């Protein structure tokens, strides 16, 4: 079964069905694609010739102080304002409950005068506890990777290049712990960004802030190294600079986003699936096959390079590495056929793990930029869960049976099926998971699990329908007003191509990590390094172009466009685009 075309764009495309794609475990196996927001940003900056440069760099010898970077786009001017401060080691935590960080920063729309700088300096370092300015598009904070930071400063101060193997575990000097947008703590609402020609797409402003922070992190370590040893200090080589990313540490706080923005998530998935359908329908020639092989080899090298602490993820990477090697052998041996890509996917889907299947899908999408990059424009969604009160109940019943079969037919009565409940802690309003019947807070449960609610709606609907065979949705709601949110969501999501994430969020076996990874992959994160089921460290922009690359007209185009699955400098490089 494939999905029905939801627009003329999908006519003739063989899209995978929602039952396959919206499975939570599969979503939790996603890797970032060329359509991810981080990749989108670096292409956009190149295509539109953005100019980014430092306008203020007032740091002391230890790297504490303030810096400002100006972003000039064809349509507007923005400034990233960064505050660096001393932080006691005991206070350095990635948890959202922290109240101090090594760095805090914000992306400002327009100019930053002295008065605004004073306001920012008084509030941005406080993050949630501050009252933030409405011209801030993004605020965030980051902590040092102490090991990497010290290793880099020491090496550079000694006039040497740092050992890049440090970056295979944690590919960054700083790790953000939350990147806030959309009106949080007084900053600009997303509604305002919708009219902004540069940042109207979701998360592009956040990505821009993080991308520029990466540049600051390099300039800061070089500055500290020079302060330690001005005569001998070295600058990082461009290759190592590019191999430095920015880390991110994410916990359960991200999970509700995926549930509370179902239309957006469905749209992101649809765009990815369109890209996959387009790519897999291409008729490859030998050049395409050679490029696919080169991409597979680079991804294999990336997996071999990646060091993660989590044993389960390490095993998944190991399996993916082995399976990708099998895929390379397969690709080298099979005869070239016009349906080669479909044959590859069919083989992968029957023989390989979910992780490797989705990795191959990612690489296939990578192969056809001209055909898929325009899809990036459709990564936004008008998020309105609208009721259709005049919908006949018989039609609502059919919608539930067709699109929510996974929910209405599930068993929510057994202990394991209702094991977890979600709630919000008084500590910074952080979402948490509790064990039902054992932990406090069940009476304040967050209504995140749509599956059990859909089942209750269905059962009551069937009863009402027996009494009122010609009844309307409004008749059901007048009897059960508490279903307003659920019915609105059911009716709306049934009109989307991919609908809901198909998972019982109460189930004991449900892995919140899958939710986190799904979203992070769309943002462009890689090197997933879970800390248990509820906490993950990732890296952004490792391998991405540098600001100096944008200034240099001689920079090769692939620097801006072809930096997925980065491999450490000096490792054996694959020539990608012969």
């Amino acid at each position, binding site marked *: 079964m494939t999905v029905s075309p939801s627009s003329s764009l999908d006519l003739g495309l063989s899209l995978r069905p929602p039952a396959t794609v919206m499975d939570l475990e599969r979503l939790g196996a996603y890797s970032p694609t060329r359509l991810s927001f981080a990749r989108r940003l670096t292409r956009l900056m190149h295509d539109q010739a953005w100019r980014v440069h430092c306008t203020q760099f007032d740091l002391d010898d230890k790297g504490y102080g303030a810096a400002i970077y100006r972003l000039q786009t064809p349509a507007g001017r923005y400034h990233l304002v960064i505050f660096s401060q001393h932080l006691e080691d005991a206070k350095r*935590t*990635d*948890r*959202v409950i922290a109240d101090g960080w090594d760095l805090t920063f914000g992306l400002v729309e327009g100019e930053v005068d002295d008065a605004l700088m004073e306001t920012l300096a008084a509030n941005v370092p406080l993050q949630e506890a501050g*009252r933030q300015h*409405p011209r801030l598009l993004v605020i965030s904070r980051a902590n040092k990777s102490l090991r990497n930071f010290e290793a880099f400063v020491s090496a550079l101060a000694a006039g040497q290049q740092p050992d890049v193997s440090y970056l295979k575990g944690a590919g960054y000097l700083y790790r953000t712990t939350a990147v806030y947008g*959309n*009106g*949080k*703590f*007084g*900053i*600009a*609402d*997303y*509604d*305002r960004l919708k009219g902004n020609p540069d940042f109207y797409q979701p998360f592009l402003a956040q990505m821009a802030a993080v991308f520029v922070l990466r540049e600051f992190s390099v300039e800061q370590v070089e500055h500290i190294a020079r302060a330690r040893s001005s005569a001998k200090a070295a600058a990082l080589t461009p290759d190592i600079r590019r191999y430095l990313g920015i880390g991110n540490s994410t*916990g*359960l706080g991200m999970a509700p986003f995926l549930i509370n923005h179902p239309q957006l998530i469905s749209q992101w998935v649809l765009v990815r699936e369109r890209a996959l359908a387009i790519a897999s329908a291409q008729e490859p020639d030998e050049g395409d096959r050679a490029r696919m092989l080169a991409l597979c080899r680079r991804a294999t090298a990336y997996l071999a390079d990646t060091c993660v602490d989590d044993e389960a993820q390490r095993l998944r990477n190991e399996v993916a590495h082995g399976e990708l090697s099998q895929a390379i052998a397969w690709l080298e041996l099979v005869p070239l056929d016009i349906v080669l890509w479909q044959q590859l996917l069919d083989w992968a889907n029957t023989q390989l793990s979910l992780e490797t299947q989705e990795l191959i899908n990612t690489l296939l999408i990578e192969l056809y930029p001209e055909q898929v990059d325009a899809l990036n424009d459709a990564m936004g969604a008008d998020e*309105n869960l*609208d*009721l259709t*009160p*005049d919908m006949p109940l018989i039609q609502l019943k059919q919608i539930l049976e067709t699109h929510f079969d996974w929910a209405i037919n599930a068993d929510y009565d057994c202990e394991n099926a209702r094991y977890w409940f979600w*709630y*919000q*802690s*008084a*500590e910074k*309003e*952080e979402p*948490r*998971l*509790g064990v039902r019947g054992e*932990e*406090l*807070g069940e009476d*304040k449960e967050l*209504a995140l699990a749509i599956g059990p609610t859909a089942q209750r709606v269905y059962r009551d609907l069937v009863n009402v329908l027996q009494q009122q065979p010609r009844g*309307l*949705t*409004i008749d059901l*709601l*007048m*009897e059960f*007003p*508490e*279903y*307003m*949110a*659920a019915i*609105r969501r059911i009716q709306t999501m049934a009109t989307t191509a991919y609908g809901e994430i198909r998972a019982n969020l109460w189930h004991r076996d449900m892995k919140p990590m899958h939710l986190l990874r799904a979203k992070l992959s769309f943002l462009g994160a890689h090197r997933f390094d879970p*800390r*248990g*089921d*509820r*906490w993950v460290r990732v890296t952004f922009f490792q391998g991405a172009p540098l600001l100096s690359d944008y200034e240099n007209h001689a920079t090769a185009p692939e620097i801006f466009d072809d930096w997925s699955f980065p491999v450490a400098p000096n490792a054996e490089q694959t020539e990608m685009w012969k």
Partner: protein
Amino acid sequence: MKISLNELQSVCRKAFVGMGFTTGHADDAAAMVAWMQSYGLDGLKALTEGLECVVASAVSVRPDVVYQDADLAVVDGQQMSVLSSGNLALELAFAKARIRGLAVIKIRHCRQRQLIMGYMSRLADRGMNVTAFWRHSQAPITEQVVGFRARSAVPSIRVYELADIPEDDMPNDGITILMANHVDLLPTVRSEDEYKLLARHDESDLLAAKQQALEEGLTVDPEIWQQLKSFAAQTLVEASEQSRSGAGPAE
């Protein structure tokens, strides 16, 4: 203090849940208040002036339908806030108007009637022409008429005082709402009676207010904000060592 629209809607939503609203009704009530505030129509003032009524209304989300036929419905608001069940009453009329082309609903005995505009905006966004009428006071008689054109983000609003008091001047604490699927119902005051226009909000004024709110944030009274946050805090679970482990491992 300045807050963003998203903060206002989010805190209101949690506050309504904290008061006892179901999640769907809390969503709608928060959207109604935020809509009013974002267009410069003092949604927070309307909310907080009748906060006790809103809290009392939290448990009553089922409108009491006194009469209905295919085109018309009369519901009893039971002296509750329109934030409580105004959404369902309007959805009832919306369903009728979609089927019959035009529908009328009368919500009797309801409070905080200004806030109904927030839900009317959603129906307009879904393609319905919506006009509401209510009488503010009896002596002097002041009336308000609010009209949304289908697909328009903002209404035209007129508030006027009648010079002549009609013979039948029974107190009117209800709202009458007309919905038309295919024809405009914009308010144009053409009464033969003498009247004094007290307030007039045109679409352009309201759009300008929204733009200003997006650029500069919304100004709210810190005490009111704290009051809302206190209600919102009732949705939160006190932290404990056990709950901290529910957030994942610490470093």
